[in-house]
């Protein structure tokens, strides 16, 4: 018996993901749906900040470029687009997509804007966090916005209304992929087994190339062919939930049981309880089976009753991160770099009283694993790296100045000063009841 199959593609697994492989998928992927997953906890908060500065912004900065690249191909091939690129401003994002569609002559294209994830108004100073003790007031920080993770129920009405592009804000990542499956296969919203397997598929796809060879290569141990030309993934999903992960021929990368297994547990804690708004998914009995070149069948995802409450991420203004560095190379480099580190620490703490949130690393000797107390390596090409966080930009500028002054005032032979200041956000999570949320959509026509 022929079982209907749906082809899902992932065109982005994070906000700054590549464009070319997404265009490739739109052009020759034979896709039913192309999904762009572009929100992390931090990008969400940055979206709110952008929107505060300009009420017409707050969506993914690459939205226009991505739509210009894929929209005509998707229209020609009957591929629908589902994305969270609306970030903190789905309405402005939908209007931008309409504008791009008109520019491309795609008149009549239907763009749905899904809203209801912004729950900033529900957060009070007394709101308690879910992952650690404390309340919003306890942080002492200015809130920039709060968003609830919505599930398939938020996207289904827009899909049912015939949207060609569904653009939302905070949606649980796997739900972006699960929604088209539920819509097209008519899966029941309490068929926990199917929702669990479909959530597994979404979870595997949501990070883009992390399942086609990205974040995987380890030369001599895990070799990945043509990593520079890595393709984005495709999931071929059957009505019974079975799924084959693959990619386009003539793209770089690979889909193997190894790439799939690593992604099964990516950012997963207890494999029997992966919580989403739609299901409590269970990945503990997942099986993977190679079924051809760059083709791996994934089965065994299961599920049970969805959680009662929904997770909210609250973003706060986190001040600034300053980073500055100077390099030392050649004979006695490590001793000179260590002396530079000591000078900076002493001056910043004794003279400037900036010792609090300060860290000094010697890159090449011991930086990433400094706290892990791994034995330092001996190196003759070492970079002093100084990091400082503060609410006060002036503190950061003082630190940068101190590090730069090492050029003339520090140990012999220091060079290559660079310094930068990055605005920061802080995020915390809380839970809210489902009855406090009412997602809606609005359709725009190009």
């Amino acid at each position: 018996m022929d079982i209907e199959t749906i082809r899902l593609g992932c065109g982005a697994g994070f906000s700054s993901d590549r464009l070319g492989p997404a265009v490739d998928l739109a052009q020759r992927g034979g896709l039913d749906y192309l999904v762009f997953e572009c929100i992390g906890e931090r990008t969400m908060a940055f979206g709110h900040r952008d929107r505060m500065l300009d009420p017409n912004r707050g969506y993914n900065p690459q939205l226009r470029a991505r739509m210009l690249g894929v929209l005509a191909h998707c229209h020609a091939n009957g591929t629908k687009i589902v994305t969270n690129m609306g970030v903190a401003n789905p309405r402005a994002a939908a209007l931008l997509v309409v504008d791009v569609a008109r520019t491309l002559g795609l008149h009549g294209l239907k763009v749905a804007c899904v809203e209801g994830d912004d729950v900033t108004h529900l957060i009070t100073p007394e709101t308690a966090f879910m992952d650690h003790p404390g309340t919003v007031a306890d942080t002492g920080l200015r809130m920039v916005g709060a968003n609830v993770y919505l599930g398939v129920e938020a996207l289904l009405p827009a899909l049912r209304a015939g949207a060609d592009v569904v653009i939302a804000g905070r949606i649980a990542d796997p739900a972006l992929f699960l929604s088209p499956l539920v819509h097209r296969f008519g899966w029941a919203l309490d068929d926990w087994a199917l929702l669990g397997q479909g959530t597994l598929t979404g979870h595997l796809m949501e990070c883009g190339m992390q399942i086609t060879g990205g974040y995987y290569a380890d030369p001599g141990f895990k070799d990945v062919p043509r990593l520079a030309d890595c393709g984005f993934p495709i999931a071929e999903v059957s009505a019974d939930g079975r799924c084959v992960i693959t990619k386009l021929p003539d793209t770089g990368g690979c889909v193997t049981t190894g790439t799939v297994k690593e992604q099964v547990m990516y950012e997963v804690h207890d494999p029997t309880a992966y919580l989403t708004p739609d299901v409590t998914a269970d990945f503990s009995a997942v099986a993977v089976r190679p079924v051809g070149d760059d083709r791996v069948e994934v089965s065994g995802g299961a599920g049970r009753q969805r959680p009662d409450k929904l997770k909210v991420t609250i973003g706060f203004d986190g001040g600034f991160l300053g980073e500055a560095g100077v390099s030392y190379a050649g004979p006695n480099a490590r001793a000179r770099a260590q002396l530079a580190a000591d000078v900076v620490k002493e001056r910043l703490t004794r003279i400037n009283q900036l010792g609090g949130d300060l860290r000094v690393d010697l890159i090449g000797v011991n930086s990433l694993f400094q706290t892990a107390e791994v034995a330092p390596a001996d190196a003759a090409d070492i970079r002093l790296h100084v990091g400082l966080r503060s609410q006060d930009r002036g503190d950061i500028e003082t630190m940068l100045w101190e590090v730069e002054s090492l050029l003339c005032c520090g140990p012999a032979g220091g060079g290559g000063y660079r310094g930068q200041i990055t605005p920061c956000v802080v995020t915390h999570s809380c839970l809210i009841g489902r009855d406090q949320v009412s997602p809606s959509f609005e359709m725009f026509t190009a």
Partner: protein
Amino acid sequence: MKPSAKPARIHDIAHARAGDKGNTSNVSVWAYDPADYPLLKRVLTAERIKRSFPKLFTGSVARYELDALHGLNFVMQDALEGGVNTSLNLDSHGKSFSYLILGLPIEE
């Protein structure tokens, strides 16, 4: 896989991937050869991970076993020096923790 001249490390028999959520890190470790999985399971305990890096993994360490896939998933609470928002580590996501664990010798 390459034969290694050095004392055998976990890296010689397994691969790994790290992920982060808040101040919690998870590292999944997978035996290349299913025949090595029982060895991996025996030597790479949650207690050993915690004991090997006490200053870094200050919270609890849990281990989940994926016998069908020949993998172990370690979940380290309070492991990211405050998390991506507050850590001053260059790798504030703890992406490199996979190779921190793969760098351990197979036998202590």
